[in-house]
């Protein structure tokens, strides 16, 4: 694979971002109330592509919106007229700046479920038309544990374009996929000069080692996977979920959670059907029409969450449904960490 790499400096990077914004619809982290969320931007000054990982929402809503219109309907005595919704604003050619590695990774995980028995064409279109531009992570946040999971953070092919801060003050803009390559060809103009060599300076190695060394959380996910799959009935789930307040926010900020609910909203004769996020931690999530609820208590819902992330999804798709981004722990009002939960449960389960 021929890989395009350009080298530039800080000012050049800004110009590159501007060129991206000029060439297609661009989303980037925008600060609102001290938290960064990905929004449509037209100018570099509006956004911060290097937003701190702990304060940035995931990019999931750009592919799986928090509420998506499924259909519109007009119900009159002449019949019910169901129509597709307006054009999907997320399916246009677009680029996303400032994507974190874990977020990009989450798309690869989600691809599995969206391309499974039912192909979600909306999701597909959004994926295809999106160029993901990311800056290389150089330091782990308190709750990060992506390196403990089975993918190569360094060579993530979910990123179309990777921006690397060289130790020499130089900034490398690297295409990682053919999509990224052709995109760079379109966009990068005079501000950057192409380099033919792969950037492989020992500096980068050192940088990566420093990055990998900055992780507070480390685990052997294979061991966790194996232990968890055997201890469905451990009472430890009750202990670890003890101070959970069932607020559901973990699922809403999680880059890989993909449960949803359907709701209709109608005014006069016309209505819209929405598909909106839901959470398995919600007590009513599994309530059935007849009144039966297989997960009426909190620990069972927590067990489902942990098992789905580290066992069930793995069994079906060969991947963990967790990318180690730590967003849930940061958002959690009582700082419950999925990392601690799975480790604690698997450790306790084995002792018994």
């Amino acid at each position, binding site marked *: 694979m021929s890989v395009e790499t350009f080298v530039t400096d800080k000012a050049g990077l800004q110009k590159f971002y501007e060129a991206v914004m000029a060439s297609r619809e661009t989303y980037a982290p925008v600060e609102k109330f001290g938290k960064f969320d990905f929004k449509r931007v037209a100018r570099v000054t509006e956004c911060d592509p290097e937003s701190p990982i702990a304060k940035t929402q995931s990019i999931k809503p750009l592919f799986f*919106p*928090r*509420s998506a219109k499924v259909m519109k309907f007009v119900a009159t005595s002449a019949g019910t007229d169901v129509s597709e919704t307006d054009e999907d*604003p997320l399916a246009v050619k677009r680029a996303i700046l400032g994507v974190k590695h874990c977020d990009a990774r989450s798309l690869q995980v989600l691809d599995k479920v969206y391309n499974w028995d039912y192909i979600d064409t909306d999701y597909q279109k959004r994926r295809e038309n999106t160029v993901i531009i990311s800056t290389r992570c150089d330091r782990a946040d308190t709750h990060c544990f992506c390196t403990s999971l089975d993918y190569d953070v360094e060579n993530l092919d979910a990123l179309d374009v990777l921006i690397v801060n060289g130790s020499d003050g130089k900034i490398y803009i690297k295409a990682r996929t053919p999509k990224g390559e052709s995109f760079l060809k379109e966009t990068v103009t005079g501000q950057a000069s192409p380099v033919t060599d792969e950037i492989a300076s020992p500096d980068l190695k050192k940088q990566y080692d420093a990055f990998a060394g900055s992780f507070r959380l480390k685990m052997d996910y294979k061991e966790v996977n194996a232990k968890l799959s055997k201890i469905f009935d451990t009472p430890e789930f009750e202990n670890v979920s003890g101070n959970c307040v069932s607020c559901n926010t973990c699922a809403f900020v999680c880059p890989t959670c993909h449960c949803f609910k359907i709701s209709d*909203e109608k*005014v*006069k004769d016309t209505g819209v059907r929405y598909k909106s996020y839901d959470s398995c931690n919600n007590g009513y999530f599994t309530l059935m029409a007849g009144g039966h609820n297989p997960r009426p208590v909190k620990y069972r819902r927590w067990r489902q969450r942990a098992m789905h992330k580290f066992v069930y999804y793995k069994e079906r798709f060969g991947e963990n449904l967790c990318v180690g981004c730590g967003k849930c722990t940061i958002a959690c009002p009582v700082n419950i960490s999925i990392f601690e939960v799975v480790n604690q449960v698997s450790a306790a389960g084995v002792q018994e």
Partner: protein
Amino acid sequence: MEAEVKDQLVSIEKPELIAPPNWEPVIMGILCNWCSYAGSDLTGTSRIQYPPNIRIIRVPCSSRVDPWFLIKSLQTTADGVLVSGCHPGDCHYISGNYFARRRFLVTKKLLNFVGFHENRIQFSWVSAAEGPKFAKVVNKVTEDIKKLGPLHLYKKENFEK
């Protein structure tokens, strides 16, 4: 051309949005059965004319009015709401309007706080004998809301996320 633009109605909360030509506001009127609804009937039997913008919903008592109804009205169909009940002390259900009065004040102030013009949420006490007063109230509310222009905040069709 200049003059024409000036004549155009804009939404008070979102001045960038201009009302369509011949725009007429919709006002949701929630009336208690015993005083205000009866009063509005008397307005009818007395043939006192008032603007046709109000749409009337009958409830047993002003205390039945959940602030939710006002929020929902403003979000969907209405440019303004009017809730009317019995005068203090005259409530058919003894104390209903006193409970309602508190809720109304807090709701009105809250909606105003988040950006709704206060005239979009109005209340009145109209007794069963006050047919003329009902017409006067509707006149005032309609006039007020016409001045404010169409309501765009949080309208269902407006969002796109």
